[in-house]
Structure formats: C-alpha cells, structure tokens
C-alpha cells in the first residue's frame, strides 16, 4: 500500500505511545499552523523541526519522503507559477515566443513560501500516518466522528487501489510482450485507451463482487471499526504541539529577525 497511497504500516503492530486519533489530529493542527506562517525561513525551520522530531520518533523517512516526492509537480507548479502571476516589482523578464514575461519579486517570495508550506505539510501528515496501520487510521477517523459510510468507502479504496494498480501493470506487461513499444504512436494511444477502459470495467465488476461478499457477511453501509479513543499520554503530544506553535509564531520569527 505504501507504494501507492500512504506510508501506513502493514499488518498489526504494537501500539505507539500516542493514540492514532491524537496523532492524526496533531498532524492536521500542525499543518494549519504551518499554513498560517508567512515567513519562508520560519517555514523552513519548522520543516527541519519536523525532520528532527520524526527522526527521534523513528519515522520511516524513506517511505515518507518517497511519497512526498511524488507531489513534486504540484509543488513546482506553484513555485514556478507565482513569480509570473503575482506581484508588482519586476525583477526580470523572460523572453518567450509569445512575448516577454515579467517576473515579480513578490511572486518569487510567494512561490517559495507556498512550496515550503506544501512540502512541510505533506511531510508532517505523511510522517504521522507512517506510525499507523490502516486500522489505526480508520479507528482515528471513527474517533473524530467521521461518518461510517465514508469510512467504509475509504477501507475499500485503500484495499483495492493497489489491486487495480497491479492489474493495470499486468495489462501493461501483456501489451509490451505483444509489441506495444514498436507500434505507431496512434496504435499505442489506442491500446492505452483500451487499457484504461478495461481497467475501469474490471474495477466496476470487482467492486460489485466485493460488495456482494460484504453483504453476505452483514455489511449495511458501515465498517465495524472500534473507535480507538484517546490515551493519557496524548497530553504530552498536546504539549509538543503547543511548543511547535510557539516555535512557529514566536521563537523562529524572533531568530529570523535577529
């Protein structure tokens, strides 16, 4: 699953010091805090703070950063878009076939800020998730009262997305074995189009079969997950979160000014 979606742990694991619900909520709150910071250097400092904290907590950085890196296009899109769309102070001009494109100082700063925010938020949330199993995550979402129908859909999606990806890979292999790469571009596009159609068709057929199997075992729209609840040690997490906010709004800005 980690290869496709989230860096969740697999199987059943020993419970960590904090409840999954507290961990999940803390990650979301930390993301909000990062989102409120307007100074790029402060966001960068928070990013390093997350890295240090995660290392102390033995986060599986390879899985986390590997997944975060998949969002590079989204991040780069904003980093590169802002300098040419936002601001008033022109610092340079890019010559394009369609005419000159001004680059703004404010846009460069905004692009860097947005990019750093996105990377920090992604890393924080993924790092928190890397300490949970899917069941922990479902339990956490149950604890924060997410509707059962959404939880049910989430469970199915998380379970079957890798299956569909595998299926698509097998179809790609089958096409390659029959010379997909040597065909004309038009043929390749047609084959890939058919593959997408087949994948959707198979996904639909399988989802029907899975739904049948679930109905036979009493599924009525909700997955029977026991809400994980909270633990006393979560108070410590709350304190750490407070320190994070303190660093974000007071300590790091003061250091940056100095």
């Amino acid at each position: 699953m980690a290869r496709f979606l989230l860096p969740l742990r697999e199987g059943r694991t020993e419970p960590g010091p904090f409840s999954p619900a507290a961990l999940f909520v803390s990650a979301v709150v930390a993301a909000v805090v990062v989102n409120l910071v307007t100074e790029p250097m402060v966001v960068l400092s928070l990013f390093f703070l997350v890295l240090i904290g995660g290392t102390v907590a033995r986060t599986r950085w390879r899985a986390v950063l590997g997944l975060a890196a998949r969002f590079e296009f989204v991040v780069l899109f904003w980093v590169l878009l802002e300098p040419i769309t936002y601001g008033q102070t022109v610092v340079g001009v890019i010559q394009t076939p369609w005419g000159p494109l001004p680059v703004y100082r404010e846009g460069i700063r905004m692009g860097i800020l947005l990019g750093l925010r996105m990377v920090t938020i992604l890393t924080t949330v993924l790092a928190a998730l890397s300490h949970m199993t899917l069941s922990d995550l479902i339990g956490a979402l149950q604890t924060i009262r997410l509707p059962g129908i959404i939880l049910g859909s989430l469970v199915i999606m998380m379970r079957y997305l890798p299956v569909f990806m595998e299926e698509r890979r097998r179809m790609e292999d089958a096409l390659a074995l029959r010379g997909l790469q040597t065909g004309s571009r038009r043929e390749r596009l047609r084959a890939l189009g058919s593959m997408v159609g087949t994948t959707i068709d198979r996904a639909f057929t399988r989802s029907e079969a899975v739904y049948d199997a679930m109905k036979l075992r009493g599924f009525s729209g909700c997955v029977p997950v026991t809400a994980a609840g909270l633990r006393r040690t979560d108070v410590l997490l709350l304190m750490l979160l407070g320190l994070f906010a303190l660093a974000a709004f007071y300590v790091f800005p003061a250091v940056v000014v100095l």
Partner: protein
Amino acid sequence: MTCAIDIIDLNFRYDSFALRDITTQLHIGEQKAVVGLNGSGKTTLFKLIVGLLRPLSGEVYVLDRRVTPEDLWEIRQQVGFLFQNPEDQLFAPTVWEDVAFGPQNMGLSNEEVEDRVVEALSTVDLLDLADRPVNQLSHGQAKRVALAGVIAMRPKVLLLDEPFAGLDFPMVEAVVDTIERLRRRGVSVLYTTHSRFFLENWADSVLVLESGRVVYDGPADEALREPRVLGQVGDWGRLRESIHRSRTVPLDIDAGLGADMEP
C-alpha cells in the same frame, strides 16, 4: 426438517434465460457437486440461494425458511458462500480483521468475535498469518482466509464456487481437509467443480446443469454412467486419444504458424 436447501421451479434470466425450471434439494449433511460447462448457470444458482439475485419465478428455501428480501440477513448467517476468486472476497486490511467482519456484523461481543476468529483461522491452519495484510497472501492462502471468513459465521450450509480453482495440490488437500472437518460437524455442502476426480470421490450426489437446465440430479456413483454428465466433466479418454493421435504426426518445424494450419 430434512432439506438444507430446497429449490422449486426456479427461473432466472439476465438478458436471456440463465436458469430454467430448476428443482433440486440439498439434504442436511449431504455433499452435492454442481457440474456444468462455463456459463451453464452454476454461480447464478448460488447467488439466487443467498439472495444476491432475485428469481424471476420459483422458490428457494434454506433450512425451511423461504429466501425473501426481508429474511436475507438471517438466511446469510446460515449459508456461507465462498467465491471462486478470493480476491473478490477479502477486503479488510489484515487477515484477522477480515475474518472478524462477519461475526462483528452479527453483533457478537468482542470476546465472542475473538473466539470465532481464532477458531476459524485454526480450522484452516492459518492462525499464524492473522496479522498479515490480505494483499500479501498467496492465492491458496487467500482462498483459505476467505473460507475462514465464512466459517467464522458458523453457517449450517456451505456454497463453494470452484473451491479448488488455481490451487496447487497441497492447498487442495488443505481445503478438502477443512471442509471435511466441517462436514463431519453436520454442515451441508454444495460445490461447483469441473473435476471428474471430485465427482467420483467427493460427492454424495450430483446436479448437472446444461445451458441453465437440470440434465441430471442424482447419486454420484450413477452420474458417471450418464453420457450427458460425461460431456460436462470431460471425456478424458477421448482427449487422451486426440493427444496421442496428434503426437504420432511427424514434426514440420519449417512450416511455422500460419493460415494453412490444419485443425
């Protein structure tokens, strides 16, 4: 009560008729093989028994209770259905959670759910895989976990759709052993197969479907004397002769594959 399943004049159609005038019984403690070519209606029949499909006409009774939309959950607690493809049946993150899904939906206490999961996984000899993610199971293991999920609901009747499809011999042995253990506890079994071996050795009676109609319904030992039954499970003698004939023809390596290939 003598019938685990009683089917009377059952008709069903998708675009055209899939099942026509099906009448048969599965007696309590009986093991019945359902035989037929692909598309003959075997899986459709199973889906009608557990109410996943609604018949065009006719009646299905499970343990003397008519299958109606109102009673489906009660019926489904009595009848376990093992799909042909376990990939369609397992959906929870781990083996343990998947097996626990049915008992949890039955409203049992956590202790009772745990007892049932341990019992079911022990029955299929997979207790040591309880914590494994279901997407890391081999096909044979997935099949047995799917069976454990069914067993955990302690059904009185089992419907097994191609229970041995795609399994290697040790896995076939393991599944047979598991189902035999259940049968000895009085569970009635209805299963589909294409294998003559299982027809000869592992069925009290046989139901043969051909294009959605019953062409034989009777004792297993008499079934293989019926030419229409042989047509469904394969005339292996004829195939052996065909292969033998083909292999006596000299090789023509230079010919390659092409339009002039003789049948």
